[in-house]
């Protein structure tokens, strides 16, 4: 009897959970469905079954030169993240393995730079970009995105590195490992997962950044976030094409995001919730 009730309540909760999940996912689902419709179908009223045409995807790729913003998104998000890692790995390493009295203060201060609202420095950054010819260049935006995410990168790496036990190093030294072997065979394998998680989350953050990319690009260096925002001024009916462009802009990062749920919590709460 008790078991039957549990089973029944389990089914009840399952239905409730799936209902909520599908409700939340619905806007994305409906966009995917609409992207597979023809333009006529797309505005013909509510319909969950598309004709599965890929014509909208083809149209977006050819007419709107989708590949340029796509390439820019890849270059900007990967470039800024890798650049940040180059600067942050040594810093986080030093803070985790040779902490000083001020390490905590430095970390807190780094975090505080993340609190600065972007719009507060819009004027100087815009003018600097305008006057130095960095406007609408990939290099300018890559450096800017690197600076924006650097505090998060240092913090994430620090929380990961701190979990590498120092005793392992001592044990390796006792066994006569050289410094080179120590780094190569002991520390690196233990640090790689943390670095990979950090890379993943920051690529996602940089890919989705939509304030600076809109302010500082026009056509040349515009990534997908700026490209899509330009769709806000309508030029006729283009529901299916708009959906196709949206799907192409979010699909890669959506898939990456699904793999990074755990790191997301840790990275975005600066280790405050694990």
């Amino acid at each position: 009897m008790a078991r039957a009730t549990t089973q029944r309540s389990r089914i009840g909760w399952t239905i409730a959970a799936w209902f909520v999940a599908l409700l939340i996912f619905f806007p994305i689902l409906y966009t995917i469905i609409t992207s597979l419709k023809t333009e006529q179908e797309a505005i013909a009223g509510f319909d969950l079954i598309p004709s599965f045409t890929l014509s909208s995807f083809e149209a977006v790729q050819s007419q709107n030169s989708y590949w340029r913003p796509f390439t820019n998104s890849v270059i900007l998000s990967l470039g800024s993240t890798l650049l940040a890692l180059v600067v942050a790995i040594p810093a986080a390493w030093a803070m985790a393995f040779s902490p000083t009295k001020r390490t905590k203060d430095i970390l807190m201060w780094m975090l505080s730079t993340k609190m600065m609202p972007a719009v507060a420095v819009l004027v100087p950054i815009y003018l600097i970009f305008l006057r130095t010819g960095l406007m609408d260049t990939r290099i300018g935006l890559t450096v800017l995105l690197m600076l924006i995410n650097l505090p998060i990168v240092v913090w994430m790496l620090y929380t990961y590195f701190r979990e590498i036990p120092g005793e392992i190093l001592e044990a390796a030294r006792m066994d006569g490992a050289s410094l080179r072997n120590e780094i190569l065979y002991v520390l690196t394998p233990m640090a790689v997962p943390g670095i990979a998680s950090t890379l993943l989350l920051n690529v996602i953050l940089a890919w989705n950044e939509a304030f600076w990319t809109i302010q500082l690009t026009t056509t040349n260096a515009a990534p997908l976030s700026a490209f899509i925002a330009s769709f806000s001024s309508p030029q006729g009916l283009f529901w299916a094409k708009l959906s196709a462009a949206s799907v192409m802009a979010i699909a890669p990062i959506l898939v990456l995001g699904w793999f990074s749920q755990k790191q997301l919590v840790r990275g975005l709460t600066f280790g405050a919730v694990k």
Partner: protein
Amino acid sequence: MATRQTQSLARLMRAPAILLLLAWMIVPLAMTLYYSFLDYNLLNPGSAAWTGFFNYRFFYTDPAFFAAIGNTLILVLGVLAITVIGGIAIALLIDRPIMGQGIVRILIISPFFVMPPVAALIWKNMIMHPSYGVLADMARFFGVQPVDWFAQYPLLSIIIIVAWQWLPFATLILLTALQSLDSEQMEAAEMDGASAWAKFTHLILPHMARAITVVILIQTIFLLGVYAEILVTTNGGPGNASTNLTYLIYRAARLNFDIGGAAAGGIIAVVLANIVAIFLMRAVGKNLD
């Protein structure tokens, strides 16, 4: 172990990150502060003159400023209320032994990975459009007049979009906190015949308090900067009905070319963000010890 040599090496390893962030923090902020005292418009660039606090006064006496502050508050508080309450409810729901939990989690977390302009466009065109949106289709099905969301309820529409984007974040973090709850404690409470509500208020909620604080503080930082959602949907209108502080400053700088005024607004935004930041730093700082 900590010889002088390793100490100086460590300093060398820390230096680039610290110097970069120091420059990133000081240079633009100092420039913003400087510009905020200038009468400087990009349309007549020759005439940048010192005006003291004129820009601040101008910003302060502009009715749009108070509208923007009010809208910013409503936006932040509205989204926080929806995401925290909704997040707790959904976290409790999917923490149960349900079937297909992995997929449910993936579906719920997905909106967080949708970039803001796409999220705004999806809601604007697919869901809330007065003639082709799903909500309009539903209204017609029930024989009701479809709502023109962005014209009739501009701020509410933006709150809904932003809440949709941040609900996954709140849910995920609250779920993580919930899963670290001691199951023995829960079982003990059950043995003592505690009601579900008693368990929630006396065990679950206190346990999640810290995570809720973190969610509120982190979201507030990001919510103060909501921009793309407004740009894509309402452009801050009708009038100033959906203009927040970020959008007001953007408009001053980029559409009115008023460098001085935008800089003064920027300084005001910094002050506001810092008030929140102080609380966040305390909450995170405790975890470092």
